């Protein structure tokens, strides 16, 4: 049986705290026995679309991501469809409202089989400094695909930004490869969820939040 469960609010930006609060309210974080895409079993599941397709969730996700992106200089932000689609739209909209527009793009998981056969839609120019976004990072497959695609066209990945880091090895592997990975929410294998204590401390996990 799937049930919603506890969430802990800790230190973190106001926007990140709002994101966690809304995720809880909208049922984006559910508990039960799940089989993940990789075949791993998990006692919890984060459904990013429940969050990013809610009016309030879309706004606060966009705002939280924009706050992170405002700390660095990027030319564009985007990620792998479908997880990143609504996030890209949200952060682009918020960036316009905040007067610091950041164009966005989406990377197709598979290129269109007909027509243009484009792999990237939207605003991605070769040689750009970009941030890669995703709703959740588990093994990191989706993020890696997006990174490979943008690097193929000569872009530099400045930061990887996710709503939820499940701490299942994906973010750790990317960090080992030299990418900065920032999560708004840490979701630990135990099922505990918390706002990242200091999302601006790049490349560090914040497990101490739970101690």
């Amino acid at each position, binding site marked *: 049986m799937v049930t919603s469960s506890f969430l802990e609010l800790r230190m973190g930006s106001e926007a990140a705290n709002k994101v966690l609060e809304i995720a809880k309210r909208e049922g984006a974080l559910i508990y039960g026995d799940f*089989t993940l895409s990789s075949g791993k079993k998990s006692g919890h599941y984060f459904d990013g679309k429940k969050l990013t397709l809610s009016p309030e969730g879309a706004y606060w996700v966009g705002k939280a991501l924009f706050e992170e992106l405002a700390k660095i200089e990027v030319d564009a932000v985007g990620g792998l469809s479908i997880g990143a689609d609504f996030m890209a739209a949200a952060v682009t909209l918020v960036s316009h409202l905040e007067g610091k527009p950041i164009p966005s793009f989406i990377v197709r998981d598979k290129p269109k089989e007909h027509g243009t056969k484009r792999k990237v839609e939207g605003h991605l120019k070769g040689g750009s400094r970009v941030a890669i976004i995703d709703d959740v990072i588990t093994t990191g497959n989706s993020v890696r695909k997006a990174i490979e695609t943008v690097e193929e066209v000569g872009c530099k990945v400045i930061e990887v930004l996710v709503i939820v880091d499940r701490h299942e090895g994906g973010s750790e592997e990317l960090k080992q490869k030299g990418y900065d990975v920032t999560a708004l929410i840490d979701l630990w294998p135990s099922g505990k969820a918390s706002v990242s204590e200091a999302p601006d401390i790049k490349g560090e996990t914040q497990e101490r939040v739970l101690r």
Partner: protein
Amino acid sequence: MSVRLQILREKLKKEFYVDNLYEIAFLCRNWALDTGIPAPFFLLEHIFKDMAMRWEDVPLTVEEAEQVKSKMIEPLEGLVGGLEADVPAEEVFGLLNRVTSAYLICFK
């Protein structure tokens, strides 16, 4: 053919989860393109791809994955066995129908 069917058997022994389903679909696609009897592999490609797409980006419970596998594994193994035994085309058609029916029952 026998090597391919052995690989397929091994894949089917694993649990049904998205990455495994896509992998089976990908293999079946390549085999369909490289055999004189593409229909079984073509059908399997579409069944496994459809299943993977249905389960991608949604909370798939262990219970649901196990239920679907339990309903589909016997007809799937029957099809693989039939192909291994090189049964006549009419029999293969019947085995394909069993796989298709099992799939349609699982995903009405």
